[in-house]
């Protein structure tokens, strides 16, 4: 901690190569981004309509990342632990519900009552994912609550494999698809811009769920208890809060949101539902949570949306202008470069607070 005021004193006496390199890195990355974007925009390769459609698709994708990221951030806020099996919680809801969705489609219920059917699907997926998250907490994490921090982390990775292969055993490994919902096909035409209806629907549904969570955490007694536990477990216990119960609630809420994200993801990107589908979104959502400041609920929402948009717009905007071939393949590079960049500028994440030594 003593080093903080030292760097403020004078640049020449305290020249540090590490600081120099980090600063140079910042400048280089920013220059590359600016040059790339300017080249692309000046070349006029992409029309305004194309940018808008990429942006909206990015928002829809980002809102799904945000829903999953909330699960990471809620658990981290309370237990200071990264639940790496959270991607699998998302998968469990999405994969189980695909069968119900297909049954709804076959019986015609999905097209006759789309809103009701989708709400039932979301609730069903939420319940499945919630049960998985609760079992995970009760069987894998609670027995390790007092253990060193690495132990639950490794357990989470093990639990993640366990869940993947359990679901592979249950449902097989082939890819399945959510049925197309008639009411959500087609596009909204705004002037010359055409946006598939499903994208704003996905975005709004995710926003509603996030608003619900925000209300729960900020305005209810349960939320108050959750915030208290995240501040200080011992004092909360003295105040008569049942810590175990609050932790279970936290896992349940995170799981339910992940399950809902599974169905919403199925509306947006119907294909590719199988036992391994949680891995990549899990990693991306974790990135989003860190990007926004892990432990911070608004940060996870913002981080998710930010990541989704950057991923959609970034490859064409930055890499294309720099003349890098195969720019689309470098999509993940954008996502994780963004993470590195944010961590260089704001190690605590976009909205995160500086953590004290004890909490970090």
């Amino acid at each position, binding site marked *: 901690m003593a080093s903080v005021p030292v760097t403020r004193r004078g640049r020449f006496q305290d020249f540090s190569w590490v600081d120099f390199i980090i600063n140079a890195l910042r400048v280089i990355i920013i220059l590359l981004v600016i040059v790339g974007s300017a080249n692309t925009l000046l070349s006029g390769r992409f029309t305004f309509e194309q940018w808008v459609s*990429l942006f909206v698709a990015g928002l829809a994708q980002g809102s799904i990342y945000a829903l999953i990221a909330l699960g990471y951030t809620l658990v981290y806020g309370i237990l200071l632990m990264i639940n790496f099996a959270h991607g699998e919680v998302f998968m469990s809801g999405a994969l189980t519900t695909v069968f119900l969705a297909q049954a709804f489609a076959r019986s015609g219920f999905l097209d006759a009552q789309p809103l009701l059917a989708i709400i039932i699907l979301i609730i069903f997926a939420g319940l499945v994912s919630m049960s998985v998250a609760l079992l995970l907490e009760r069987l894998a994490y609670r027995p390790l609550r007092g253990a060193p921090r690495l132990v639950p982390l490794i357990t989470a990775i093990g639990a993640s494999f366990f869940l993947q292969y359990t679901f592979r055993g249950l449902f097989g490994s082939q890819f399945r698809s959510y049925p197309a919902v008639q009411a959500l096909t087609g596009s909204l035409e705004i002037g010359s811009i055409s946006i598939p209806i499903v994208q704003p629907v996905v975005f709004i549904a995710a926003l509603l769920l996030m608003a619900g969570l925000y209300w729960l955490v900020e305005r209810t007694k349960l939320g108050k208890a959750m915030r208290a536990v995240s501040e200080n477990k011992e004092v909360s216990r003295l105040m008569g809060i049942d810590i175990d119960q609050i932790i279970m609630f936290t896992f349940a809420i995170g799981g339910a949101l992940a399950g809902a994200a599974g169905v919403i993801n199925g509306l947006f990107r*119907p*294909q590719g539902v199988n036992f391994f589908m949680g891995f990549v979104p899990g990693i991306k959502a974790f990135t989003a949570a860190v990007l926004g400041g892990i432990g911070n609920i608004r940060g996870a929402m913002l981080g998710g949306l930010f990541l989704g948009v950057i991923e959609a717009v970034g490859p064409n905007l930055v890499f294309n202008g720099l003349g890098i071939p*195969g720019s*689309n393949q470098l999509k993940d590079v954008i996502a994780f470069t963004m993470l590195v960049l944010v961590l260089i500028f704001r190690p605590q994440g976009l909205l995160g607070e500086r953590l004290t030594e004890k909490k970090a």
Partner: protein
Amino acid sequence: MKRLLVVLFVLAIVAVLGVAVMPVAAQDCTDAIGCVEIGPDDPITIAYMLTISGGTASLGEDSLGAIEVAIDDRGGELLGHDIELIGEDSLCSAEGGQAAGQRIAANPQVLGIIGSNCSSEAVAALPIISEAGMLMISPSNTAPRLTEADADKGGVWQPGYYRTAHNDLFQGAIAAEFAYNILGKTKLATVHDGSPYAESLQAVMADTFTELGGEVVFQGAVNVGDTDMSAILTEIAASGADIIYYPYFEPESDFFTAQSADTPGLEDVALMSADGTFVDTFPENTGPAAVGVFLSGPYVAESETYDTFLQRWDEVIGGVPPSGFHAHAFDATNILLNAIEQVGVVADDGTISIGRQALRDAISDLTDYAGLTGTLTCNETGDCATGEALAVFEVTQAELDGNWPPPVVWLPGMTEMMAPEG
């Protein structure tokens, strides 16, 4: 002193064991790379190395079913011994192919392997299989480099590799011919997924398309595991292409096709994929956007023998084959079993001795074998298919409702497209 005695004792045991074991192997085997001895009551072991899980599982199930039909056709017996089929899942990846190859090569009784499905698996497994003296016949590897012996040209062929699948030098060329001559397209965009199969296929397609007089306006790639294709689709729309060739696998090809319908600027662009996407789950998974997609794929001319095969499939496996390489797998299995029958030397007590080099030679010498996929003759680097058995298909509404395979719209050599019927 005592220690010296122990060492001497151990050495003596090793020597006795060595003397005891060596003559047996060397006694009656004159084959350059060794023999397989099958005891009177032991089965003849062959292996499969196929992708029987994950997104490409239909490809593996398709081949596996045909192998089982071919074995069943012989009553499960060869030279008076049972045929034992063991197998490994090679996961359609290089890592999977390597692991599967190692596990199979560790079993010295295995005579030959039917596999692999994906070219990436074969590239990784082939050195191991070849080193072990075994042989593999692939029903669906189509990457040109697998039967190219010249390493400077990217070739990875090694002795013991054969395939009944067509070489992509042929598949890519007919795709280009169809796109340019038949559809009249002039601006091509190609996309691959980084696999050797898709990468070489799109390269051949692009080269031939340019030779014919067309222009390649975009060449790009997606990652395996990507779900969001909007960035690359937008880039293609901006390039002005009038046909997109994306010869890779599900589910990336599902995502790509479905999202192309939502991308402004791609409304009138033709979509074409290849045999990797030629599976019955493609229309269902992709939805309405699959209608109108052209697929090049294996085509077995209707014949009595093929009808008989389909009937046998229904009896042994049930239903219809889920993908397009069952006939190739059936031919591959029969070629292997015929060669074993031809080379195997049966002793009076029922013991069979099979020379590994002799077995390879028997397959290398294969000429004018009348298989389901046409007349097969193997060349010196293991290409046994003639390329007769290829066609271009078009997905229609009927496939969305569960029909498979889609109707043929073009066969190499035709000057115009056939109208797809229902």
